[in-house]
């Protein structure tokens, strides 16, 4: 995805008062892996709660809507529309508060990049492992096939321990292992699955 578009989204969100941590496919893409062309950001709980108030009426924001733990919309940039998703950190915080998770992610699993504060890949995998849909396990399996290091899964488990949802993550890892047996290191160049 064009980094200028990502920057436009994060700059727009900053103007609207959001402290946004970039997660999702944009992070993986910067590691040379695949990503869909949308910008996922994690925001603080209070900011997520105010997402509608802050964004819904803005003329640059189109098709805005909130579904459970995700607020989705499109940012109009000239003749382009950039899809963005705001994620509620409470979904990922296990036994602790959403804001504790947000702060932990921001302080320990992120770096400052030209596109904005950007999560490290193990944090993205942690969030993907917690989402119910098997589509997110597929994405992790694809990343592993593309050479992503399996150590990122160990680090995702490390994050899970902080939030007491290690059991859940281990269940998901078992499922992931059914989709793609997990080795101890990345798979190198693209491999045929069959």
């Amino acid at each position, binding site marked *: *995805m064009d980094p200028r578009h990502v920057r436009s989204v994060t700059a727009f969100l900053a103007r609207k008062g959001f402290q946004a941590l970039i997660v999702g*496919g944009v992070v993986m*893409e910067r590691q*040379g*892996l*695949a*990503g*869909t*062309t*949308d910008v996922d950001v994690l925001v603080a709980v209070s900011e997520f709660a105010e997402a509608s108030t802050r964004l819904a009426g803005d003329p640059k924001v189109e098709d805005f809507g909130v579904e459970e733990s995700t607020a989705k919309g*499109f940012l109009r940039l000239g*003749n*382009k*529309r*950039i*899809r963005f998703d705001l994620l509620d950190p409470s979904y990922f915080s296990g036994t602790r508060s959403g804001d504790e998770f947000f702060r932990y992610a921001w302080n320990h699993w992120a770096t400052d990049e030209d596109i904005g504060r950007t999560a490290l890949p193990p944090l993205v995998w942690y969030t993907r492992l917690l989402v*119910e*849909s*098997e*589509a997110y396990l*597929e*994405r992790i399996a*694809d990343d592993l096939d*593309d050479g992503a290091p399996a150590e990122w899964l160990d680090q995702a488990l490390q994050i899970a321990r902080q939030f007491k949802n290690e059991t859940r993550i281990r269940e998901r890892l078992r499922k992931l292992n059914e989709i793609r047996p997990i080795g101890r290191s990345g798979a190198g*160049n*693209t491999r*045929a*699955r*069959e």
Partner: protein
Amino acid sequence: MKLETGLFREPGEHSLPRDLAVPVSKTRGRPKLEYRLRVKSEADVVRLRRHGVPLALLTPELVAKNGYPLSFRPRLLVPSSLRSVVETTFPTLELRDEETVRRMSVEDLVAVMLKVRRLAARQLVRRNLDRMDPVRLAERVFVENLLGSASRVRLSEFVAGLPQTVPSMPEADLAAEDAQVYGD
């Protein structure tokens, strides 16, 4: 033991561009040269294709042009028959049949994506139903031995006669993916 193939030019045959087809040895006693193909850029692939060499570059632009925006590292598609004679800086993806690489129709693209991103392959099928030949797609899936991947993302929904050989992802998860709308 494995079978290795070579790329040779017979006397009188049109030559490939010298910077792309690099001679490696002269076969003793015969006026034939053995070549290796050196591929460093998309332009190299275009030139070799013009000369009838079955190579292709899988790019995000190609996938986006067919209706699904996805970022990924380009991969050089190489038929198994040429694998040992291609030197490239691109990650490579090996296909069983030269025809998949040579044509690169939307059906071939779906087959290739089944090896790279199965969910994207499904979306390509959904977004190109009106111009897709299901018979050719089924044939590509069989030829490239991709029934498992096709089953996982339930391509049998769109391609009659494609057997479901392994359980697919849950229907609700596929429906949620189908419902995703991305930007321009």
